[in-house]
C-alpha cells in the first residue's frame, strides 16, 4: 500500500468552531508559518458547530457577569469541571463574541434598539445566550468558513485522521497518519504542532444527534497514543430526538429544547402527560431529568408505535406554533410529520460528549506538539454542559489553541516518526481489506443497541458489565468482517469499518468509566448509586490505556457551598415565566 509523506508547520484536524478559529488565530499569530487544515468531510460542512440551534453563552453586562456565568457553569457541571478551564471559557467568550461580530462578520439577533438580544436557557441565571434565530451555528460556521477559504492555507478536504504517530522515544508527536478518502491512499503529515479538534459526537447510541461523519476518531486516536482522558462516562442525552423508525437517518435528530419551554407537552403512548410523575417542573425540567422520565416510560412500555413518546404542540394553536418555530415545523413537514397541529414521536438522543483529552488552559496535552480543543477536550463542562456553552467552548479554545501554537511553533521542529507505530497504524486500517467482505452496518446496529440498553440514560453495575461483554463480542466480529478492496477511492464501507473500530474503542471506555463512578452526577445516572455523593469529595474519572482511576477535583476558584458572586447578589436575574 502506498504511503505519501507530507510536511507542514501547523496541522489542524477538524473544521468546526474550534478548527476554523484555530486556523485564523494561528495565521494571525504566526503569519509566516505553513498552516494545513485537514477535515474528514468538506471545510465547514461536516462537524457539529454548524448544527447549533440555540446559541452562544456570554456575559455582556445588564447585571450579568463573568463570575455569574462561571458559577452557573460549575453548578451545571455538578462541581466536576476543571475550574480554570471553565473560568477561561466564560472570560474569553466576551472577546470571542465581539470577534465573531466585528471581524468574522456574524450578525446576531438584535433588540429593536439595535443592541444584542440575549435569552436564558435552562440552568442559567441571566439572559445570556446570544443567537441568530434558532440557526446560530449556520451563521457562525458559514462566516468562519468564508474567512478560512479566503486565506492561503493548505486545505486537505476529505482527509481523515486515523493515527497519532509519536517519535521513536515517545516524547513528542511526529505527525498524523491520514487517509485521503477521495483517492483511498495513506498520507503521513508531519507537523511541528498539531491541533486535534475533530469533535466528539457519541454516535455509538441507537439514537444520536451528531453529524453522520462523527465517530469519535479523535478520542480513539488519543486513547491508542496513551494520552489521559477524563470524564469519559459523561454522555449528554437530549430528551427530544425525532423518532421515525430504524431505517431512516432522520431518527435521532434534535427537536429543539424551546418546544418544551414554550409549553409543549410530552405524552406517553396512551396519550397521558407523564413528566409531572417524575418532577415538579414537569415538561420544563432540565434535559437530564426529562430524558430519564421518557426512558422510564419506555421501560414501562407506555410507548408510541416506534417505541418512544410524543411531543404535542397543537394545544398552543397550530398557527402560533408554525410562526414561533418555523424551522422545526418545516423540517418535520419535509419528513412527513405535522408538528404544529399533530403530535410527533420523540425519544432521548445522545447529543454531546463532555469527556475528552486532559489539557491545560492553553490546550496543551501531555504530549509535546499535540494540542486539543473543542469537544475532543475534557474538563470545561464537568458532568453536564449547559445549552449555549458548547459553541462558546469550541470557539474560545480554538482561538486559544491558534494563539498558543502560533507563539510556540517557532521553537518547535519537525520530528521523525516511530516507523513501527506508523506501520502498525497502517496495518490496523488495512485489516479488513484482506478479509472476506461482510456486513458492517449490522455490527453498527448491534453496538448502538448495546450502548443504548446497557450504557445509556440509566445505568447499573450489571448493565454496564453486560455492555462491556457485548462490545467485546461486537469488536471480535468486526475483526472478522472484511471490506471489498477492489476500489478504495471514496470507499464509504471501508470508512464505516474504521468508524466502527473507533466507536468500539470509545464505547468500552465509556462503560469502564461509568463503572468507576459510583454515584450520580449530571449526565451520569446510576440506578444502583442514585445519590450525587459528597460534593467536597468530588472526583473525576481518568482513563489511560487500560487503566481507569479516579482523581480529586481541584477547587481552585470556588469550593462547594460557596460562591464568588458578591454578597447580596440575587440567585437569578431571569424573570419567572
Amino acid at each position, binding site marked *: 500500500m502506498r504511503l505519501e509523506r507530507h510536511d507542514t508547520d501547523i496541522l489542524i484536524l477538524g473544521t468546526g468552531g474550534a478548527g476554523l478559529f484555530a486556523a485564523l488565530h494561528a495565521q494571525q499569530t504566526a503569519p509566516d508559518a505553513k498552516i494545513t487544515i485537514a477535515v474528514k468531510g468538506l471545510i465547514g460542512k461536516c462537524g457539529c458547530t454548524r448544527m447549533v440551534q440555540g446559541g452562544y453563552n456570554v456575559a455582556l453586562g445588564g447585571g450579568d457577569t463573568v463570575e455569574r456565568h462561571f458559577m452557573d457553569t460549575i453548578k451545571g457541571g455538578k462541581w466536576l469541571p476543571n475550574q480554570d478551564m471553565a473560568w477561561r471559557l466564560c472570560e474569553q467568550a466576551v472577546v470571542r463574541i465581539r470577534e465573531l461580530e466585528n471581524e468574522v462578520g456574524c450578525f446576531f439577533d438584535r433588540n429593536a434598539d439595535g443592541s444584542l438580544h440575549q435569552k436564558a436557557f435552562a440552568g442559567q441565571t441571566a439572559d445570556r445566550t446570544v443567537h441568530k434565530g434558532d440557526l446560530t451555528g449556520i451563521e457562525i460556521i458559514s462566516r468562519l468558513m468564508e474567512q478560512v477559504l479566503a486565506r492561503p492555507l493548505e486545505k486537505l478536504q476529505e482527509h481523515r485522521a486515523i493515527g497519532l504517530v509519536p517519535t521513536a522515544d515517545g516524547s513528542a508527536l511526529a505527525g498524523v497518519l491520514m487517509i485521503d478518502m477521495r483517492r483511498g491512499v495513506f498520507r503521513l503529515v508531519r507537523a511541528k504542532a498539531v491541533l486535534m479538534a475533530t469533535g466528539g459526537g457519541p454516535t455509538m447510541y441507537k439514537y444520536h444527534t451528531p453529524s453522520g461523519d462523527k465517530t469519535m476518531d479523535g478520542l480513539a486516536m488519543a486513547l491508542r497514543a496513551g494520552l489521559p482522558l477524563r470524564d469519559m462516562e459523561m454522555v449528554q442525552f437530549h430528551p427530544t430526538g425525532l423518532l421515525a423508525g430504524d431505517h431512516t437517518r*432522520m431518527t435521532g435528530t434534535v427537536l429543539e429544547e424551546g418546544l418544551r419551554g414554550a409549553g409543549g407537552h410530552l405524552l406517553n403512548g396512551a396519550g397521558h402527560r407523564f413528566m409531572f410523575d417524575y418532577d415538579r417542573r414537569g415538561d420544563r425540567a432540565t434535559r437530564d431529568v426529562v430524558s430519564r422520565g421518557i426512558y422510564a416510560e419506555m421501560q414501562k412500555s407506555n410507548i408510541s408505535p416506534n417505541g418512544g413518546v410524543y411531543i404535542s404542540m397543537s394545544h398552543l394553536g397550530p398557527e402560533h406554533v408554525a410562526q414561533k418555530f418555523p424551522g422545526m415545523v418545516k423540517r418535520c413537514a419535509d419528513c412527513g410529520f405535522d408538528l404544529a397541529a399533530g403530535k410527533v414521536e420523540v425519544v432521548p438522543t445522545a447529543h454531546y460528549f463532555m469527556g475528552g483529552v486532559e489539557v491545560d488552559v492553553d490546550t496543551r496535552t501531555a504530549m509535546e506538539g499535540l494540542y486539543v480543543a473543542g469537544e475532543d477536550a475534557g474538563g470545561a463542562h464537568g458532568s453536564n454542559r449547559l445549552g449555549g456553552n458548547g459553541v462558546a467552548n469550541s470557539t474560545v479554545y480554538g482561538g486559544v489553541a491558534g494563539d498558543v501554537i502560533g507563539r510556540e511553533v517557532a521553537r518547535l521542529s519537525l520530528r521523525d516518526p516511530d516507523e513501527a507505530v506508523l506501520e502498525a497504524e497502517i496495518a490496523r486500517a488495512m485489516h479488513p481489506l484482506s478479509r472476506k467482505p461482510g*456486513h458492517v452496518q449490522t455490527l453498527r446496529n448491534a453496538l448502538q443497541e448495546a450502548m443504548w440498553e446497557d450504557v445509556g440514560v440509566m445505568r447499573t453495575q450489571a448493565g454496564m458489565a453486560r455492555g462491556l461483554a457485548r462490545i467485546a463480542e461486537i469488536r471480535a466480529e468486526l475483526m472478522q468482517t472484511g471490506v471489498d478492496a477492489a476500489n478504495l477511492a471514496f470507499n464509504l464501507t471501508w470508512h464505516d469499518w474504521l468508524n466502527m473500530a473507533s466507536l468500539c474503542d470509545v464505547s468500552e471506555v465509556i462503560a469502564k468509566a461509568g463503572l468507576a463512578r459510583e454515584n450520580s452526577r449530571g449526565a451520569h445516572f446510576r440506578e444502583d448509586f442514585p445519590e450525587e455523593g459528597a460534593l467536597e469529595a468530588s472526583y473525576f474519572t481518568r482513563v489511560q490505556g487500560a487503566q481507569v482511576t479516579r482523581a480529586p477535583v481541584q477547587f481552585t476558584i470556588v469550593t462547594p457551598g460557596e460562591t464568588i458572586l458578591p454578597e447580596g447578589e440575587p440567585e437569578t436575574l431571569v424573570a419567572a415565566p
Partner: protein
Amino acid sequence: MGTLIVNVARGDATERRSERFEVPAYESQTVLDVVSWIQQNADPTLSYRFACRVGMCGSCAMMVNGVPRWTCRTHVQKVAKGGALQIAPLRNLPVIKDLVVDMDPFFDKWVAAKAVHHPSRGRAEPMAEIAPDEPGRVTASAGIECINCAICYAACDTVSGSPDYLGPAALQRAWTLVNDAKDGARDAILDAVSGQGGCHNCHSMGSCTTHCPNDLDPLSAIAGLKRETMRKALRRA
C-alpha cells in the same frame, strides 16, 4: 410498503453509467435513506456525501429525477413517480465518484466574488448597534440563511453555459455584504461582481429562486447587484 426502482448514476469523471437497484419502501424515508440503504445493503462500493441529516450543512444535494434537492430533507413519497427514482450527482460541478461532486469551483467563486466579511471594527471594540428593521439590514438579512448547498448553482443554466459565471449563491452573499453596514469594503465587492463572470451575466431565468430549499431569493439579490453596479459605474463616469 412495496419496492422502489432506483436508477443511480455511477462511475468517476471519465466513465459514467447508470445502475438499477430495488430498494424496500418505508413510510418515513428520505432520498438520503434510499442512497444509504443501497450502500449498506446492496452495493458497498456506492459513494455519496452527507453530514448533518437535517438540512443544515448542505453536503448531500443531488439531482433527484432531474431536479437538484437536499436528499436528507426530501421525502421519497413527494418525488417518486410510480415508485421510481433517478439519482445523479449535482449538476454543474465536476464528479469525483458516483454521487459525489467536487464543490471547490463553487467555493472558489464565492471567494472570487469577495463574498467574505471585510472588518470595519476589531475584537476590542463594542459591537455595532444596528436595528433589525433598518432598510439595509432587512435586505442583508434576507439572504443570510444560505447554507451554501449549491442547489441554486446546479439549477442555473447560465452556470452551465458559461463556466466563468460566479453563480447565484456567491452573488447573493455579495449582495448581503453590500447591504451590511458593518462591511468595510463594499465598493471592492461591487467591483468583484461587475466584471467578467459577474452579475450582468445573469439572464433572470430564476431557477435559483425556484429551487432554493430555504426559500431564499438569489434572483432578486442579483437584480440588486445589477442596479448597484450600474449606479456605481455612472458615478464613476
